[in-house]
């Protein structure tokens, strides 16, 4: 696939995820530009057959945006992002269907689980920071995040 085509297909997704985390259009575009540039240079370590490119880009966009938020250098773990091979967001219709399902499941989560996913995924807070902020026990935070993600997985598969 030509790089321009990859950009046209996934640029909006990557930018939207980065913007959701950073809330600053200029910073979000910087993150997006760097991700696609590294993908083009072949330094993003995306491996075909190890998950959908769209899903991979979405996770990398989130991780890079969190790195930018924490003003850290890109973490090694970003390069190690590996997804289940069955995830496929290549076509517009598949992606739209998936987005619709995800939104329905996310809205159906209990408020406390939604809040924890929000803090961990979009705010980049660690589990101990979340526990401190919410006053919940560390174990409770872990379990709620895990439960929310499992609910999401099952809801989308179902």
């Amino acid at each position, binding site marked *: 696939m030509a790089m321009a085509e990859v950009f046209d297909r996934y640029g909006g997704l990557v930018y939207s995820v980065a913007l959701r985390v950073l809330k600053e259009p200029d910073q979000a575009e910087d993150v997006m530009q760097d991700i696609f540039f590294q993908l083009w240079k072949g330094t993003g370590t995306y491996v075909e057959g190890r998950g959908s490119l769209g899903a991979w880009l979405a996770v990398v966009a989130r991780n890079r945006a969190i790195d930018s938020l924490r003003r850290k250098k890109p973490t090694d*773990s970003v390069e190690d992002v590996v997804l289940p091979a069955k995830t496929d967001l290549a076509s517009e219709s598949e992606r739209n269907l998936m*987005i619709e399902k*995800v939104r329905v499941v996310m809205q159906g989560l209990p408020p406390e689980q939604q809040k924890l*996913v929000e803090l961990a995924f979009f705010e980049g*807070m660690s589990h101990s920071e979340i526990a401190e902020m919410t006053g919940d026990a560390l174990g409770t935070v872990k379990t709620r995040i*895990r439960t929310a*993600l499992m609910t999401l*997985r099952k809801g989308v598969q179902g």
Partner: protein
Amino acid sequence: MTNGAHISEEDLALHALQALTAEESAAVQAHVAECEVCRAELAAATGDLALVALSVEQQPLPAGARDRFLSRIAEDAKQAEPEAKIAKIIPINRAAVGRVSVWAPRVAVAALLIIAVGLSWEVLHLDMRLRRETAVLRSLAAKNAKAQAVVDALTAPAAQRVLLTSVKTPPSPTGRAVYLPSTGALVFQGNNLASLPADKTYELWVIPANGTAPIPAGLFRPDATGNASVVLPDLPKGIPAKAFGVTVEKASGSDTPTAPILLAGAAPAAGD
């Protein structure tokens, strides 16, 4: 952190979220490198994160973001080019060199010949096209100049208008209409026209070939020598004329011709 022999699913999810401390993450990383079960579960947890990412409302890209990206990679590619052109020193395989050295010059010459023929053909083709278009341009310019000269001659106040008749016949009013139905262009030239009272005017009419009502084609009054002209009045396009007529009407003109018709002429069929 470990759940028996494996990392707990909660910690794998937190690791995927980068929500563990550096030490905890390092421990997970080390275990996952060796454990296929945990590697698969970590991949599944990362897949869950991709789903969370998808819940984000799609935002339009900033204006020019695509161009900036394409420019960046184009610039990078340009900078990378000189490196590619620098010959690398590689070990010589003499047997291979022997085979290549025989064929390489012939292949190169053949390729150059093909390129040269292709370029010559392209140059020839472009040259012929240029000549054709120049000739068409010249022809159009000549036609345009001629048409302008005709209009100038017909409408110039200083033009001498002479009607030749039998010497024994007194000059009578005449008119000559030149009409192009496809464009609605009409040029009328009247001669020997009687002068009219101030409240009257001559009116030219196009009589359509399809039998519909006469179309007013302009008002005119003769000059002191009895000459008048109507040039390119506002007429609809595509109306072939059966005839033309001139009547005398009130000064403001009329929508329908008033008898009698002073001048009339049948139009020949188009192309006659």
